[in-house]
């Protein structure tokens, strides 16, 4: 049995009602499974890729933003690294010497700027992140906003000084947003559950309770 290609399935997704392969899809479990996977990937794009990359794709090509980002690491060296947890706390179980630091850079009209905890930035600013860890780390980087909305930004293996790929585009809404970076073997779901527990109380909560492993966090005040 031959199956429609991905290109035909893409056409089907655009207009299932008039799709010439609708009959096949209705009878074919494999194609329905592939379509479900494609829809899930599309949802991933809309929820995470689109907001993180919109600024890049809509920026005029001549805008020297790339150059600004190239300057960002140098600016970071001169600035204070954000170390949200200078020492182990009661829920810290990471390896000694394996602390995590996180630095955030904002792309502002005046140039790339390293952010300190509590800094204010325009609510539609693009951010990039750099993390540093001495031990190999299963990094989860999420954000929580004033409404308690949790956004998954990065889940990846890192070691040493790592500039995280792409960027994060703030949602345009005013109010506080805290970014949490965690090195944990517990996985994303455990981190997300902990983030939901703190709700919108972001200015006081510097760490995610109950999540084992080094953490760092950064509070940003988004100005509309």
């Amino acid at each position, binding site marked *: 049995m031959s*199956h429609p290609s991905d*290109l035909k399935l*893409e056409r089907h997704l*655009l207009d299932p009602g008039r799709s010439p392969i609708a009959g096949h899809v209705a009878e074919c479990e494999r194609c329905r499974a592939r379509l479900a996977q494609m829809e899930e990937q*599309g949802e991933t*794009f*809309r929820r995470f890729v689109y907001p993180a990359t919109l600024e890049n794709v809509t920026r005029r090509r001549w805008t020297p933003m790339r150059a600004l980002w190239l300057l960002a690491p140098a600016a970071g060296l001169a600035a204070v690294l954000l170390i949200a947890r200078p020492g182990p706390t009661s829920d810290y179980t990471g390896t000694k010497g394996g602390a995590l630091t996180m630095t955030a850079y904002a792309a502002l009209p005046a140039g790339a700027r390293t952010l300190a905890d509590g800094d204010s930035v325009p609510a539609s600013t693009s951010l990039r992140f750099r993390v540093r860890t001495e031990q190999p780390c299963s990094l989860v980087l999420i954000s929580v906003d004033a409404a308690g909305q949790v956004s998954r930004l990065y889940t990846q293996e890192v070691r040493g000084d790592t500039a995280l790929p792409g960027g994060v585009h703030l949602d345009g809404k005013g109010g506080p947003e805290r970014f949490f970076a965690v090195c944990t073997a517990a996985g994303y779901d455990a981190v997300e559950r902990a983030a939901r527990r703190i709700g919108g109380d972001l200015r006081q909560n510097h760490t995610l309770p109950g999540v084992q492993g080094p953490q760092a966090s950064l509070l940003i005040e988004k100005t509309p």
Partner: protein
Amino acid sequence: MDRGHIAELYRSWGPAIYRRCLRLLRDPEAAQDATQEVFRKALSSPEKLADPHTALPFIYRVATNHCLNERRNAGRRGETALMDLDVASDHPAFPQRRLVQRVLSRFDAKTQSIAVGVLVDGMEHEEVADALGISRKTVSRKLARFLENARKYLERSAA
């Protein structure tokens, strides 16, 4: 084109670009980066993105070319994690289950696109021709050459 219109086009066609890049690069981070690049390239022909009939094959073509190029570059950097692609269906002249990058890299960009279209995506020759904007005869000729040379290369490698 204003930012709002670009954002709207990106929201419409980004999912298809992302899926194509994910399929070829097999890595969400690489696919995210590639999606931006592909869309920016596609924006150079806004009239094609504006027409739903032409947009899909157009972005398929741009995304395929870009991602195959990324794969070649990754191979040059020694990054092998992205490399091999699953063959979609049994092909009498290509019994392997995987299309390995070291075979793919031996051919020109157009031949790679054709081989991936037929062997990985499972497309008919006519569909590949339409998607890549070339004749069906070119598809058949280049695919036959690919299959013959790939077979010889794999036999030599096995010997």
